[in-house]
Structure formats: structure tokens, C-alpha cells
């Protein structure tokens, strides 16, 4: 099949297999619904999280409106935490659009997590709802575009279900205990990730932004975080993407060593240096600052930023973190155009 006739889904899945695709795909493994998309549907952001139909429709809008090459569900970071007994706040009452957060933490211990990591867990919270949403999306888009979803990394998930301060200090003070804890969380993540991949999700991101080198020393990363991230990579089906935003240059070699299909980084990690440290084989997605580029910047700037990512040698153009919904439509269009028009 020639590249001209490749579907967006093939372009993304081939990229994640390490094949060179020209032009590179422009997609992400994290949230990308826009207020433009919501307006078109007449939905409020807060109404999407607990409704499979609305979630599915909203998730498809960036693909439909801008040709963004993915459909990603859900939109918040609470899926596994909820299944583990936490309570989410969707901000249904607030006027402004806000990303949901955890308002009550279940504070499960290592033993409780071990006990929770059974297939029973997969019936809890909104896990079935996300799978239903994936089914609805598939019905609509068929094999045109890949459906992505995500799980949190062990450390970041730990910070959702427990007080992050306790986990941060534990990583330094009681590394052995913390390794056990993250190991138990890894089992939960593997379970949920594989379940999603077996039920209509085409690729999955593991979002471990809590363990960025802005927060944790490379020493702690190596000793405490790396073993759990490696366990996830070893036991979760592919394609999978390890996403850590913030500056991760000091640990990018370890991220590569974990063995994920691809790494995703943001603008705080310079692409050229990242490439030098990981080598040509590592698939790297990135690496622009979504808010500055798509929300506050203009179309020309967005074009240049996206084109620069391609020239810097990313295997896929991917916003650092979530695209914030109020992103300007003309900026998204410029980003897509730049990626189509730029080659290395």
C-alpha cells in the first residue's frame, strides 16, 4: 500500500511500530477535545465524562474538524483511581470549563492494591463506560482512525489515590516500601491497560508526569520509578507510549530502556538532545507546548512550532500534554498543515 492511501490509523500504528511514515502523523495519546468541537455538539465538557455516547461524539470532533489523526478517550485522569474507590469531581456546577480532579482519595495500601488487582476491578467505575464509548467510536469511524486511551503511570496513580506528599517523601525516605507500593500499582495499570487494548482501544499511553525530573532526582527515578515502569512495559500489550512531560533529559535513557513502543515528551525536553541520548531507533513523539502554541499563540506561530518539531526529528507531532479545549481552531489547522507540508 502506498503512503498516499494509508489511513490515519495505519499511519499512527506503523509509526508506533517504529516504521518511518512520511509525513509524520500528527496525533496524541492524551486529551484533545476542543470547545469548538463541544459547540458543534452543544455539549458541556462536564457532561462528557459520565456518558459514553457524548464522550464518543466529543472525542471524534478533533478528527472530524481538523483531521487530527486520533480519537482519544476519556478526557480526565481519574479512571483507575475511581475504580480503586476514589471520588471524582466533574465540576458540573462551575461556570468555567475545568478538568475533573479527585476530591476523595481512597488511600489504598500496598496490600489493598494487591487484593484489588483482579478482573473484578475492570467492572468498576467508568471502565465499562470507556469501553462502550470505544465501541461507539469504532462504529462511526471504522478503521479510518486509531482510538487511543491512557492509564496513569504507577507514581502518578499513587499520587491520585494517596497524598502525593507522602509518596514523594516515601520515594526518598523508604525506597523499598515505595517500590513495593509502585509494584502493586503497576499490576493495576497492566490489568486496566490490557483490558482497554483487548476491548477496542488501538494504542495506550502511560502518563507518568508526576515522576518528571523537575520533581524527582534521576537517582530516585532509577531506584524507585524505573522498575515499576519497566514492569508495566514488560507486561502490557502494545502499542504503548510512555508519556512524561517536564524536563526528562536526565532520565530519557532509562525511559527508552523500559521498552515502550514510543516515548512522548514535551517542549521542556529538547528533541535533539533527547535523540542523541536514545538513538535513532527510539520512537519519540512530541514536543511542543500546547497552551502557548495553540491557545495563546497565533496561526503562524503554530505552523512554525509544528514544522520545527518535524525538522527536529520527532516520529510524530504530539502536543506536550493535553490540548486545552479553548485552543484556537485556526491554530490547530495551521499545525496540521505544517505537519503535512514539512519533511526532513
Amino acid at each position, binding site marked *: 500500500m502506498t503512503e498516499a492511501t494509508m489511513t490515519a490509523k495505519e499511519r499512527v500504528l506503523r509509526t508506533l511500530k517504529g516504521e518511518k511514515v512520511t509525513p509524520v502523523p500528527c496525533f496524541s495519546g492524551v486529551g484533545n477535545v476542543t470547545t469548538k468541537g463541544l459547540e458543534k455538539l452543544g455539549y458541556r465538557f462536564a457532561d462528557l465524562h459520565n456518558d459514553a455516547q457524548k464522550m464518543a461524539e466529543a472525542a471524534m470532533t478533533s478528527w472530524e474538524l481538523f483531521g487530527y489523526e486520533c480519537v482519544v478517550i476519556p478526557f480526565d485522569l481519574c479512571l483507575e483511581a475511581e475504580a480503586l474507590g476514589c471520588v471524582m469531581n466533574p465540576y458540573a456546577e462551575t461556570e468555567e470549563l475545568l478538568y475533573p*480532579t479527585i476530591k476523595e482519595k481512597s488511600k489504598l495500601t500496598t496490600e489493598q492494591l494487591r487484593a484489588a488487582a483482579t478482573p473484578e476491578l475492570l467492572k468498576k467505575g467508568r471502565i465499562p463506560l470507556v469501553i462502550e464509548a470505544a465501541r461507539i467510536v469504532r462504529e462511526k469511524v471504522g478503521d479510518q482512525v486509531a482510538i487511543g486511551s491512557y492509564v496513569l503511570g504507577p507514581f502518578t496513580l499513587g499520587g491520585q489515590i494517596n497524598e502525593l506528599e507522602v509518596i514523594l*517523601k516515601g520515594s526518598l525516605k523508604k525506597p523499598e516500601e515505595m517500590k513495593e507500593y509502585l509494584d502493586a500499582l503497576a499490576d493495576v495499570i497492566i490489568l486496566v491497560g490490557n483490558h482497554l487494548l483487548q476491548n477496542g482501544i488501538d494504542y495506550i499511553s502511560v502518563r507518568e508526569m508526576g515522576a518528571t525530573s523537575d520533581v524527582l532526582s534521576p537517582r530516585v527515578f532509577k531506584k524507585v520509578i524505573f522498575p515499576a515502569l519497566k514492569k508495566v512495559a514488560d507486561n502490557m500489550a502494545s502499542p504503548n507510549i510512555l508519556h512524561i512531560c517536564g524536563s526528562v533529559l536526565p532520565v530519557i535513557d532509562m525511559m527508552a530502556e523500559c521498552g515502550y513502543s514510543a516515548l512522548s515528551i514535551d517542549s521542556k525536553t529538547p528533541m535533539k538532545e533527547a535523540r542523541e541520548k536514545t538513538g535513532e531507533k527510539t520512537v519519540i513523539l512530541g514536543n511542543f507546548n500546547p497552551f502557548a502554541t495553540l491557545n495563546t499563540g497565533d496561526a503562524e506561530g503554530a505552523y512554525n512550532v509544528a514544522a520545527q518539531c518535524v525538522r527536529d526529528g520527532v516520529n510524530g507531532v504530539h502536543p506536550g500534554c493535553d490540548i*486545552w479545549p479553548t485552543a484556537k481552531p485556526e491554530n490547530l489547522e495551521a499545525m496540521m498543515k505544517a505537519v503535512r507540508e514539512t519533511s526532513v
Partner: protein
Amino acid sequence: MALDSAKKEELLKRLAQGVVEFEDDEVREAAQEWVDTGEDTYDAIFDGLVSGMEEVGKLFSAQEYFVPEMLMAADSLYIGLDILKPQMKPRDSGVKGAVVIGTVQGDVHDIGKNIVKMMFDVAGFNVYDLGRDVPLEDFLKKQLETNSDIVCLSAMMTTTMMGMPKVIEMIRAKNPNCKIMIGGAPITDDIVGKFGADATAKDASNALEEAVKMVVSLREIQKEANAKS
């Protein structure tokens, strides 16, 4: 046992070093020894504990220390503070007062806010910590209830930051004399002006260092006020 200058130097060093190396026991013992002399603990807090925290700030900026190290040092500082504070002679400088602090609605990033709060604790303020993800009206409610001098708003996201001007407007309408300080990674001097706040910590990227600077300047104001009195 009296506190001669050699002993004083030794204890100050142990307090500062104890914070830098997060040696809780060392800080606890040194603080207790100081308290046992019956002397005023003002210097122990500022030239011991806080000077240790300033060093931690430098190590953080130099990327030798990271967030866990900073949190552990803060814990050690609090251990010392709990022992020393009851014996600190009140300074009748005008700066001591009450602060309402919290991270605005929609935002759960509270590590930075907690560090800022610690500095107010050290400086002897009455701190009312509303926590994170605080509904915007709650800042006003607490300010009115406590008649605090300062309200501190923290936000780490460009998006949640947009809640700040709403809080500022609410407070200004009811209590124009209240000082409002805003901070967090997306806050710049420009934004302070735009939102109508009174101040921010100068360089948010320099995380701890900036918060420490705030206390240092507070300390200077305190000193000045003391010198005048």
C-alpha cells in the same frame, strides 16, 4: 545553662544543618537545648531554621535537591518551629498578621502552595490554609471571617489561573485594604497587573528560592520595625 555566643553558634549551625540534611532528631535536640536555656528563640528560628531552608532553596535551584528533599527539609523545619515558636518573644513589628492561602478551584497542585505557607508559618503569621481546589467564594468568606491582612492565591495552570481575577474582584469589593498576592508557575508580573493583584513571588521558576526571598524581605521589614521601636 546559659546561651553564650559559642553555644549559640553551635546550635544555629546544628539547626541549619539539620534542616538541610533533614535530620529530624538533630533539629529536635538542638531546638530543645535552645529552649532549655530560657532565651528568646527568634534567632534560632531565623538564623537557624530559615537559614537552613535558604540553603535548601539554593540546592533546589542548582538541581541537587528535588521536591522530595525539599518536603523532607520542610518537615524538619516544622519540628524545630513547633519547639521554638512558643518561646519566641513577640516582636511588635507591624508585619505579623493573618494570611488566607489556598490553591484555586480546579487546581490540585499544592506542593508550591504548601511551601509558601510554611514560610508564613515561620514568619509568625496566623495562616488559614484552605487547601487545594478551593471554590472561589471561599477565599472571600475566610477573609471576612478572619479579617486577614493578606490573601494568597496559588495556581499552577494557565487555565485555573483565570479564577484569580474573580476572587480579587470579590475581595476588593468588600475589603479594599486587603493585600492580595498571587503565585504559581504561570504567574508573571504582567499578570499581576492585569489581574489587579498586589504582588507575586518574583520568579516562579526559581521555586523555593523565591518563596524564601519573600520571608527574607519580611524579616528585613521586621528588623527595621524593631530598630525603630
